[in-house]
């Protein structure tokens, strides 16, 4: 038994070391965002909220934040409407075709974002269209839809379809079944998928880089600022985005857990 405990202890130690490796760089960014010094080097000089105050008085940042929220909101709407209907359709259709379609819907997730970005840019160029926040939304929907389809599809695969059959036997029509049985059961999964597509859109810089016109999203602004070096404002801005995605991620996780607890 002693050896078993030893291996458990060693593995536990490894686990927490890896967690440290994952989070320490993020903590460094947050730490420097509160440092009074102009340059981000040790030792820390003193504690200040000043960089955050400066951030909130910066009109450029406010504008970029609004753009990002605008893009993310539409991305979530598009991804949820198209992804959820697609997942519902796929879950009722079994066979080669639905497997192939599921693979097709998941494909944009596997490809590097760079490829999504440049192919969309080429397409827009070929059509002679103008780049705008609208084209960013289209690009982000390619990031969001696969996650929505996979999350909702997984939930639909695990619930008891006899519930729907029972409703149908009792005379409910197709849309009544979807509205009164299917949607309420998969609601937590849909909410989780919505939160995840929000944070994916809110944090994306690669697809936005190729598909945005003159307007900046928040990560694009951060990207531009980084070219001039890492200032305390950059750290503060980065910390704010970390906070937003952190909260969204925790909420999404809680929703996912809720979704596996609801009746099957």
């Amino acid at each position, binding site marked *: 038994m002693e050896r078993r405990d030893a291996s458990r202890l060693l593995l536990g130690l490894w686990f927490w070391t890896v*967690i440290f490796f*994952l989070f320490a760089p993020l903590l460094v960014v947050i730490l420097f965002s509160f440092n009074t010094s102009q340059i981000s080097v040790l030792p820390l000089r003193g504690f200040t909220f000043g960089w955050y105050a400066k951030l909130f008085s910066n009109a450029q940042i406010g504008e970029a934040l609004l753009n990002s929220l605008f893009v993310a909101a539409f991305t979530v709407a598009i991804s949820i409407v198209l992804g959820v209907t697609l997942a519902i359709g796929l879950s009722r259709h079994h066979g080669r075709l639905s497997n192939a379609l599921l693979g097709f819907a998941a494909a944009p997730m596997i490809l590097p974002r760079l490829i999504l970005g440049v*192919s969309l840019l080429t397409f827009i160029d070929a059509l002679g269209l103008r780049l705008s926040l609208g084209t960013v939304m289209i690009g982000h929907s390619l990031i969001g*839809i696969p996650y929505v389809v996979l999350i909702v599809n997984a939930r639909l695969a695990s619930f008891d379809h006899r519930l729907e059959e029972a409703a149908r036997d009792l005379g409910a029509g197709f849309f009544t079944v979807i509205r009164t049985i299917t949607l309420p059961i998969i609601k937590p999964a849909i909410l989780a998928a919505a939160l995840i597509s929000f944070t994916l859109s809110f944090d994306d810089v690669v697809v936005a880089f*190729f598909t945005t016109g003159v307007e900046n999203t928040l990560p694009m602004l951060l990207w531009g600022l980084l070219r001039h070096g890492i200032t305390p404002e950059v750290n503060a801005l*980065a910390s704010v985005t970390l906070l937003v995605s952190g909260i969204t991620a925790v909420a999404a996780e809680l929703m996912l857990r809720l979704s596996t607890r609801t009746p099957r």
Partner: protein
Amino acid sequence: MPKRFANIAFMTPGIAWLAVFFLVPMIALATYSFWSVSNYQIVPGFSLHNYRKAVGDPIFLDLTIRTIRIAVITTVLSMIIAYPVAYYLARKVRRNRLTLLMLVIMPLWTSYLVRTFAWALILGRNGIINQGLQAAGMTDAPVEWLLYSEFAVTLALVHIYMPFMVLPIYAVLEKFDGRLLEAARDMGASRWRAFLTITLPLSLPGIVAGSIFVFVPALGAYVTPELLGGTGGMMLGNVIAQQFGGTFEYPFGSALTVLMVAVVAVLVSVGLRHSSLGRS
């Protein structure tokens, strides 16, 4: 309404959207890859010139080799780091397993731009590591190769994509039947032998799936080499981005992208057959 028809009606909008904004752009890209540029104008036609340049020019060959090397090393390191993590979570933890798993996954949902530039604060000339080394008297001058190098890019890519490796390995190990191990132990196999002959082979499908999830985005990395690579850590992604940005060489950029998509497609289709994904 007939059920079958309703199902197709449900699938159509999503599939149509992806066809228009994902599939057609890919076709557009493939088409552009055969076109050429003259006098800053894109000229339609059919020429293999871009592909010849991509394959034949030693500069791009070097870049391709470096890109693949970085992606391979990133994948192998992720494997080594992630396997014990997944094993611990799946086989050794009893309580709060999901919460601990979430700790590993959570960084995936935070900005990779931030996760990338954080390393510049750590690895830079005046970064935390260099200051630490100098304070400890281990070096007199800052270690220069830490940042703007292949090393920095690889380290950051491992940091960014490693959690993708944990998930599929965890999923495989969690379903794994512990009685197999007991049987092996009862028959006299040592702990290591039981691990090497039973646990490890059975977790291969998860390792393959995780390797695809790490290798592919590392191969197409753009932000990380751009911020941390300098010239020595430049990757194919940077050159592709340049063709679509400053130099306006869409056709050549398209050819490079098509080659990358081809590599990804081959890897994914081979990988799917041997991974935990193909079976679900």
